């Protein structure tokens, strides 16, 4: 296999190809829309299909539906593109050399030479897993919107494709300028996805999402300019935004490091989201269409923690490991873990429950990162993947039942295991994996975080452990109320069980849940190197930094 991949120079074109394929798909959809595809789409709609109102339907007038088509071929183009993307990205798995330090599959090209901006991309173990997670989830998210998105499908799938490029770009970027551009590129498609195809309060939710993220990222922009100028070449004055170069050569004063870390922290903490900055998340999740929720939960939240792992902590270890700063962040992480779990328990809206559970899970990731042992960081990476799988699966299941019943309220259901046994079985399994039952993927990550973190920050860890119990409480209680209580709502009598397409979506997710629960070693092995390097770099830089405290300001 590797021989074949080498023979086609896979390692040299794969990363640009992953960025380019979704854009190519966008262009195809765009051309299709422009060249009269709109009317063709309308013809596909059967009367039966268009009779069922979709979430975004209230937005569109009858005119729109004729103009934009109901389902149309856009979804087929998108699915094909995502399938190609996924298959192509699979080659990364065998080709990735877990033993080799440094960036793999790297590509470096000039972009804006006048400003020292380069198109530098490359991946390490954690980026590898995040990229595979992204390409995997996007296929399922597309299938999950197959019948859910009925209006303006061309635009919807085009935005999904562009969004993918943005997300993958963030995971690959090794140039801070490029990183920022990709970071912002993700923002607009998600804003439109929530704002156009979302629920009743979509305008509020989408604006909140945009403003929160944008304020955070503008601060990051200021910090990136500062770093780029600090790394400017003395001879020519041209800045450098290269990640490795900045990591090795830029020395900033402790005070400046605190400010810069603060700027990065705001950008990433909003995205994670950490405890006091999380309020956009429930709104965005609840209002977003299924695919939007899935992408938000599975991938976009990880970009925040990924940012901490890639930029904020390694670049400014002296600030990140400053006793006060670290205690505050660990404190916020643990508050997030417990608070998220407790708030989940009292939710009446199932989607909101899962949204708050994300706050709790991502708190574990933050705990793992800032506990700073190889085990806890590996655990954090595992939680990132597992949360992507399990929560993505939960949102997909919620979307499936919502399409049938148009309610996300837990009280609308009850005892529906009898009418939709397949749905009930899958929801139970996925919930158990989200709780972290041994034998499912959820267990591996949280367990690693807890044992890893216990060595360095025992008190925080002990408090965080309680949330594992709360997690069992809120999810089990919720599925009890949805699936198993007395069947008391006649409206649920005619719910249909999952159809083949929906089973097709869930099958790979279930397979991954079991696989990672039983045999996570291949994944862990690939991420071990980057986790170790992260811990080493941070500790080495933090200790060397104490020696060069007097190195002075940026100049």
């Amino acid at each position, binding site marked *: 296999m590797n021989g074949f991949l080498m023979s086609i120079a896979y390692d040299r074109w794969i990363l640009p190809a992953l960025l380019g394929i979704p854009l190519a798909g966008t262009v195809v959809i765009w051309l299709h829309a422009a060249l009269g595809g709109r009317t063709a789409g309308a013809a596909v709609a059967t009367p039966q299909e268009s009779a069922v109102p979709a979430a975004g339907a209230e937005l569109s007038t009858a005119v729109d539906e004729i103009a934009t088509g109901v389902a149309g071929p856009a979804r087929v183009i998108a699915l094909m593109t995502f399938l190609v993307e996924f298959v192509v990205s699979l080659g990364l798995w065998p080709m990735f050399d877990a033993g080799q330090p440094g960036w793999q599959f790297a590509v470096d090209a000039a972009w804006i030479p006048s400003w020292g901006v380069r198109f530098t991309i490359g991946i390490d173990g954690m980026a590898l897993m995040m990229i595979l997670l992204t390409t995997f989830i996007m296929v399922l998210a597309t299938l999950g919107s197959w019948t859910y998105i009925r209006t303006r499908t061309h635009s919807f799938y085009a935005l999904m494709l562009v969004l993918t490029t943005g997300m993958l770009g963030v995971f690959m970027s090794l140039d801070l300028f490029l990183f920022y551009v990709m970071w912002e590129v993700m923002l607009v498609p998600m804003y439109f996805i929530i*704002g156009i195809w979302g629920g009743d309060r979509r305008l509020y939710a989408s604006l909140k999402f945009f403003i929160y993220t944008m*304020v955070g990222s*503008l*601060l990051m922009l200021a910090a990136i300019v*500062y770093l780029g100028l600090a790394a400017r070449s003395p001879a020519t004055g041209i800045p450098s935004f290269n990640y490795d170069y900045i990591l090795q050569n830029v020395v900033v004063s402790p005070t400046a490091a605190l400010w810069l870390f603060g700027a990065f922290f705001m950008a990433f903490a909003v995205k994670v989201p950490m405890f006091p900055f999380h309020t956009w998340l429930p709104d965005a999740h609840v209002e977003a269409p299924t695919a939007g929720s899935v992408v938000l939960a599975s991938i976009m939240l990880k970009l925040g923690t990924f940012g901490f792992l890639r930029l904020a902590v390694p670049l400014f270890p002296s600030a990140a490991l400053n006793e006060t700063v670290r205690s505050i962040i660990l404190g916020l992480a643990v508050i997030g873990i417990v608070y998220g779990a407790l708030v989940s328990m009292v939710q009446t809206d199932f989607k909101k429950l899962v949204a708050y559970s994300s706050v709790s899970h991502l708190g574990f990731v933050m705990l793992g990162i800032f506990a700073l042992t190889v085990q806890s960081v590996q655990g954090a990476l595992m939680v990132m993947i597992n949360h992507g799988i399990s929560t993505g699966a939960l949102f997909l299941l919620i979307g499936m039942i919502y399409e049938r019943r148009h309610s996300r309220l837990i009280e609308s259901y009850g005892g529906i295991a009898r009418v939709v046994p397949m749905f009930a079985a899958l929801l139970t399994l996925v919930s158990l994996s989200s709780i972290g039952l041994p034998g499912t993927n959820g267990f591996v990550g949280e367990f690693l975080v807890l044992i890893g973190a216990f060595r360095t920050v025992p008190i925080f860890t002990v408090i965080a452990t309680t949330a594992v119990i709360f997690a069992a409480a809120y999810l089990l209680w919720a599925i009890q109320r949805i699936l198993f209580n007395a069947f008391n709502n006649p409206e649920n009598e005619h719910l249909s069980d999952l159809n083949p397409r929906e089973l097709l979506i869930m099958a790979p997710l279930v397979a991954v849940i079991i696989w990672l629960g039983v045999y996570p070693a291949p994944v862990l092995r690939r991420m071990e190197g980057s986790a170790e390097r992260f811990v080493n770099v941070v500790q080495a830089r933090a200790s060397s930094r104490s020696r060069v405290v007097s190195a002075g300001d940026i100049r």
Partner: protein
Amino acid sequence: MTLALPAVFDLSKPLQLTAALTPDLVLMAGAMILVVAAAWRPDSPRHQRAIGWASIVVTLLTLIAVIYFLLHGFSATLGPIAVDNFRWMVDVVILLGTLLTLMLAIDDNDREFITAPESHVLILLASSGMMLLAAARDLMIVFLGIELMSISVYALAGINRRSIRSAEGALKYFLLGAFSTAFLLYGIALVYGATGATNLQTIGASGASGPLFYIGIAMLLIGFGFKVATVPFHMWAPDVYDGSPSAVTAYMAATVKTAAFAAFLRAWLEAFPSAFSAWHPAVVGIAIATMVLGNAIGLWQQNIKRMLAYSSIGHAGYILVALAAGTTQGASAMIFYLLIYTLATFGCFAIVSALTRPGAGTVLLDELAGLWSVRPWTAFAMAVLMLALLGFPIFGGAGFFAKWYVIQAALQSPMPQTLLVVVLVVTTAVSAGYYLYVIRVMFMRRRVEGLPLPPHSGTLTQIVLVATVALLLVLGVVPDFVIRLTWAGRPQLAPYPVSTARPEATTGGRYSISGPTTVAPISQPVR
């Protein structure tokens, strides 16, 4: 014909001085011929269009002349006008704006039944004044350019004789403009009194100081502040922008601003570096006030032209940040910003023009509701333009790079302008409030029941829209060529001693105010 142009123009010789003004003279001669042609026949829509097209041809000829000069890297001796790449780059931006204005104006006049062909001639005359401003290396030429530009634009603002608001705006613009010109003239007089010179480089070399000189600079600051609409000299802008025909508004918001900023910057960098510590706090204060107020008041606008007026005030603040950097890199950032801003502004006003009902004069934001469902491509273009003005990467095209360059220049200055950058970043976040509001209204709200479809726009308007949006998007991916051009177009400062006045200037070689003095032809690599 062998018209041998010297590599270095000797401006003391009338013939060579005239030769150095060739592009300006092409435009002026064209305007003179067309004003006769416009008067020759009675006003009619057809005649209006013909003169409009002829004006476009004249502008293109001028552009060719400018590009010829730009590519050959001429320079000149000390004199009333500058022969450098800064002038030619600013001219390119001005002529681009003129071209777009003429294209919009032809359609605009048709729709509003303005049959005055002289409107196009007025645009050409105003542009001649602007080109003089870009060339001016003498305060008297600055004054000449300002007057030629302003008087033509006063008339343009009132060109729609049937509109009361147009008349109101024009009168307001005229009175306040005359008032500001008085400030400018008084400032010139005081500076002359303090230094005995009106030539910018002579003033700079004199290293003057003292109250007379500083008051003179303050007067000039007020005069220029009016022309580029900075707070607190911005009061006229919303009313005038709202009242004027869309094409003229775009012209005022982008091109007039470009020319005024060019003269502003050249005067400040060449004549007043010795007073840096005196004017710098004032410029910083004005820049902060402009960014904050322009963007904050923009949040409350319901009329799209007024919203764009406040947005343009906010952008004047951002451009002032580049000026406050006090470096030639700041000048390069300013040209780049003005170019991108010109494209975005003309795109926006092309949309306003396309959506305006005959006689309505403007568009309310509510009328944009659900625009996506009836005019999807227009809505898409508007979204790109809004994101460009917001400074968003990729989707907003080069808007992000423009802001980035300003930030970079401000931080890379020998005296890093951290405060200004923080304000710039924060006010950018504030401006997201109204730029996004437009996008929200277009894409996420239903179209108002019973609202008729927007009228079909003219071909030229559509060309302007497509061209500006496409250019913005392309430059948003591959900006390097234009960055190189603007870098080559930074002003070349004279080798006068500045160390006495600005100790910081000696620290950074490349970005110091006493930069290299040789004129680099554009073909030469930038660094």
